[in-house]
């Protein structure tokens, strides 16, 4: 998505990227980034929270209007209900290391089957 935003900017179309994966967007480098520190999935506000969604879109519009140079990141003021998701997402530890290794082997086996038409 950041690559598309960069292409639009290069052709004269102002953009705002709205997202939750701060490192991925900032590494790519975009003109304007509205960051919400939520689990991936709801970059424009919590489901059914109309006021929060309006605030986040309003901030994106403000950013369109007011940013004067590229790589402008603004973080919205919202917090998720708990921080448990931060450690839980894609976690690797001694409790799931063997299961992940097996899942990888299974996926490679199915990919090989697909390639050979099996």
């Amino acid at each position: 998505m950041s690559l598309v935003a960069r292409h639009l900017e290069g052709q004269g179309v102002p953009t705002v990227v709205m997202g939750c994966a701060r490192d991925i967007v900032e590494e790519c480098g975009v003109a304007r980034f509205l960051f919400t520190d939520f689990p991936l999935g709801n970059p424009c506000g919590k489901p059914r929270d109309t006021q929060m969604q309006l605030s986040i879109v309003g901030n994106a519009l403000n950013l369109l209007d007011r940013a004067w140079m590229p790589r402008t990141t603004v973080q919205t003021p919202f917090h998720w209900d708990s921080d448990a998701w931060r450690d839980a997402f894609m976690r690797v530890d001694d409790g799931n290391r063997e299961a992940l290794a097996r899942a990888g082997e299974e996926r490679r086996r199915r990919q090989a089957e697909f390639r050979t038409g099996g």
Partner: protein
Amino acid sequence: MDQHRPYRSFVSYIDRSREYYAAQGYLRPYTWAHHDDVPFAPLQKPLSECRVGLVTTAGRTPADGAIGIGPLKRELYAAPADPPPLHLFTDDLFWDKQATHTDDVDSFLPVNRLAEYAASGRIGSASPRFYGVPTDYSHGRTLQRSAPQILEWCREDGLDAVLLAAL
């Protein structure tokens, strides 16, 4: 809450995904786009006169295929913003399915919220269409196929600015 922490608070998805896939035996990590130079296009007129569009990574149809097994076919599309979509397909995308859900389209594609800003006069108008760009881990396909098509649709719809939300 004010605290002192010996670590950064936001999740690094580059680090997290590299370690997760390494644990599955994928030892050559995905390489993420990195650019030193960043293009910047200033707004050319007051926001209250601008037509603003939306881009999402969600699909309007289920993806054809299974994640990680063979090619996953996702569609690049333009769809009417009015009536707004009640549901879009996100199951094949990379997001936190344990922590949240995507049953409310406006939580990732603010099509109703943007229409409300158009109605209130904060922006001139909302685009009659929104665009879907599939997450493609091929930088080349994104740059050669998806990005030029999105630009063409933006021009067809007379857009002055675009909000892009990635799940």
